């Protein structure tokens, strides 16, 4: 029990000391601060009640024991007492409910927003569309984290900047602006959550939820998908980069006509498009107990080093390439893995698809048995409910395409990475 006490004491001391590690972040919006205050209010009320109740109980445990010769009293009911300890908690609850209701109503009020971003969850990436400009891109786990998080990758997560909390393309937003988000999902439920904004809402396929935020301070704020969405639920982070308004405008302008796939293929942060004004170079994380030196390095490196790492992870294939084409066996073996990780959720391990969800079967599909170029294009660019997979390497795409073309009875030939590269 002493250990528990230590824990308890630790929790009490928490808000003062290692805030971000022990407690909820205060965050950078008015809402998040309100939420934090509410959290602490309820917490302290519970502590006080707890100390009272447990105090009486443990006093009794120590004082009223038989070994000390305590004789049992014989009282066993009192309506007055029952009424008192019904009414008092009730009053306390009302005292909690009033501020809670106020905060809740403010959080739900999306009126007066100045810009809108549509967010769509996919298995397992996010799509961002800025409805007031033509900024539009996909955002997924940064390659460095992705390499490290593979089973037995041999990479120590501690060596990876912002392990699991970094993306290839960050969501760049202006500060001091009421931003409305339209949240939906493409396949299954996801939830978009950034603790520093105190913003969490489920993304429900077929429905749109409206939420809003108004960020006070520039910085990088990290979050994660917070609704179980299948195999890689743990690997679809969210990174918001809040810029001063003018820099944000600049960013939008420089984003320009760049097409979304190119942005993805670059596998760089948005900063890569405007390297000199890149936010990573200017701001560091608000709340990051462990890695305070993060964003600078990661923003810079995510373009190059991490891609290199990803390449390194496909070493065996590289050896094959040296001697010309990759063997079918290698492609099939790699393809099976790529398929299991990226495609099986929808098209099923059996390749039969899911009729109900309109995920077509790949067995005998005209696209899989027809011209490889069509299929490569579909995998690169996505189509309708199917997300684009351009972030996969040429080799990975070649393997998975080969795999689908030669599994479950399909027999439609081999595709080499060069063919994919040609179609990028």
């Amino acid at each position, binding site marked *: 029990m002493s250990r528990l006490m230590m824990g308890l004491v630790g929790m009490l001391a928490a808000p003062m000391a290692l805030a971000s590690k022990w407690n*909820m972040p205060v965050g950078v919006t008015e809402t998040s601060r309100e939420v934090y205050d509410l959290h602490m209010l309820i917490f302290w009320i519970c502590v006080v009640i*707890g100390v009272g109740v447990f105090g009486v109980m443990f006093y009794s445990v120590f004082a009223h024991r038989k070994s000390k010769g305590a004789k049992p009293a014989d009282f066993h009911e009192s309506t007055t007492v029952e009424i008192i300890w019904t009414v008092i908690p009730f009053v306390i609850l009302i005292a909690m409910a009033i501020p809670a209701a106020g905060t809740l109503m403010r959080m739900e009020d999306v009126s007066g927003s100045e810009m809108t971003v549509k967010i769509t969850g996919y298995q397992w990436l996010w799509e961002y569309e800025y409805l007031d400009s033509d900024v539009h891109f996909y955002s997924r786990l940064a390659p460095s984290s992705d390499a490290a998080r593979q*089973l037995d990758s041999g990479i120590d997560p501690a060596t990876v900047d912002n392990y699991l909390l970094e993306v290839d393309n960050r969501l760049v937003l202006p500060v001091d602006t009421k931003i409305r988000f339209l949240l939906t999902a493409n396949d299954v439920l996801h939830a978009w959550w950034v603790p520093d904004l105190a913003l969490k809402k489920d993304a429900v396929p077929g429905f749109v939820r409206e939420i809003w935020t108004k960020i006070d301070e520039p910085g990088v704020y990290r*979050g994660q998908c917070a609704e179980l969405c*299948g195999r890689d639920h743990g690997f679809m982070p969210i990174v918001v980069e809040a810029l001063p308004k003018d820099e944000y405008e600049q960013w939008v302008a420089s984003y320009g006509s760049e097409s979304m796939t190119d942005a993805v293929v670059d596998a760089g942060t948005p900063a890569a498009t405007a390297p000199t004004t890149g936010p990573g170079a200017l701001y560091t994380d608000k709340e990051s107990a462990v890695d305070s030196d993060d964003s600078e390095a990661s923003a810079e490196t995510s373009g190059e080093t991490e891609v290199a790492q990803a390449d390194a992870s496909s070493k065996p294939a590289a050896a094959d390439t040296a001697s010309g084409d990759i063997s079918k066996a290698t492609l099939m073996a790699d393809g099976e893995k790529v398929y299991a990780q990226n495609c099986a959720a929808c098209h099923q391990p059996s390749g039969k698809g899911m009729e109900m969800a309109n995920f077509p079967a790949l067995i005998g599909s005209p696209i899989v048995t027809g011209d490889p170029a069509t299929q490569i294009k579909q995998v690169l660019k996505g189509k309708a409910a199917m997300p684009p997979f351009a972030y996969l390497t040429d080799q990975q795409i070649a393997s998975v395409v080969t795999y689908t073309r030669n599994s479950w009875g399909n027999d439609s030939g081999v595709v080499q990475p060069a063919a994919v590269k040609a179609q990028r």
Partner: protein
Amino acid sequence: MSHAADHHDDHHHGPATLSDGFGKWAMRWISTTNHKDLGTLYLWFSFLMFFVGGAMALVIRAELFQPGMQFVDPEFFNQMTAMHALIMIFGAVMPGFVGLANWMIPMMIGCSDLALPRVNNWGFWILPFAFTILISTLFVPGGAPAAGWTMYPPLSLQTSNAFPMLIFAIHLMGISSITGAINVVVTILNMRAPGMTLLKMPLFVWTWLITAYLLIAVMPVLAGAVTMLLTDKYFATSFFSAAGGGDPVMFQHIFWFFGHPEVYILILPAFGIVSTIIPTFARKQLFGYDSMVYATASIAFLSFIVWAHHMFTAGMPIAAELFFMFSTMLIAVPTGVKVFNWVATMWRGSMTFETPMLFAIAFVFLFTIGGFSGLMLAIAPVDFQYHDTYFVVAHFHYVLVPGAIFAIMGGVYYWLPKWSGVMYNETAGKWHFWLTTIFVNVTFFPMHFSGLAGMPRRIPDYAVQFADFNMIASVGAFGFGFSQFIFLWIVIQACRRKGEAATARVWEGAHGLEWTVPSPAPYHTFETPPVVSDAEVTAVHDEPAHA
């Protein structure tokens, strides 16, 4: 009737044991209609499932020991999470309580058996079959269900071959629970010995009566929900698909209409057990008996109108969010009444601290901590931050493990001498208690912190800043798990009748009809209704018994 005549036999010769030959012995357990036999079967089944579900938890904790993926594929991790919860809830806790109900309710209200003994047998034997189906999903193509125990669509519809097995296993468990619950209700309403009026019933009986009503009301709703999942996947319906006019969130509403009362199903019998143990070892009558009954009933009633507190982030009209926030907070009132009554029962008692009492006190302490975090979760705007993080995981393990599981363990220690006729090993019991209590906190307390700091639940890998707390939790989990072997050993010793003979009363302060029969309780008790004396059911006993 020849069947009825057989009954004669076992009455005279006692039930078959292994020495009568394996076949006879097996047939005894397969065909038994005796509430004590079935209670034993339920309890052993529950224990087995506790280990299986616990082993899965250990897989989870092993993978989460440090950041990075070390042991399992993420998909398998998700399978473990879902199966762990399903097995613990439907396989360990619920059958555990039903086992205790089987053993104790007839002995507490003075009747010969449950009202429908054959149905009782059916209710039990469904379970091994249902769990065989559920657990065998681990070996089918595509693996076990991996969409959490909550089975939210559309994700759950992506389950491959395991899907129909999951659904039918749940249907079978539902049948088992409903038959069991009807049996309990009928037994309590119809079989009480003369003089055992409703307001003289032990609280364990009361809480079970109310639990049984919850079960009858919500298990069919769960059956309906999973049936809709089944037809959505295989028969083209669109209950949970917007394209056809349905809504994935609709599943959540139906599921939690079941699910929230379900969590009280997992705690009300525990309240009953604790309300039985504390007065015994405080040697003082339970404080506020009537208010305990009303509080239990209020909790049960409220449990039907709070379900959407699990869905604050799913998106609801603001009025609904406010309503569910307020109604959820209200549950703290009757629960508080219970906690205060327990404390008042201890107050100025004459307490001793045998193992059952230790578990009961730890229950009051730790369950209340879980209740406090529940109250924090009830505050909708803050729940947006807590939801789907380890803070929630910490909350529900506090109410489930040192809540439900501790109560079951306490109950087992409390009644084991009555069942087996021998005292368990008290030293071993104390070791078991202290190790369990320390480790349960080492396991689950840090989860509050990692949750608040932002660690989502249901993830196989996490950012490095959560590493410390996860490492502590994993150490705790293994410690907790291995401590349970002490418990296993204690129970086996008792079953082998190793130990000091127990008196009929067993505990000095115990009162109630179950203590008026010898220990071990004969195979048949109260074939003719006993005389219920007020002294027995309401007053404290001062005749000396096992000290």
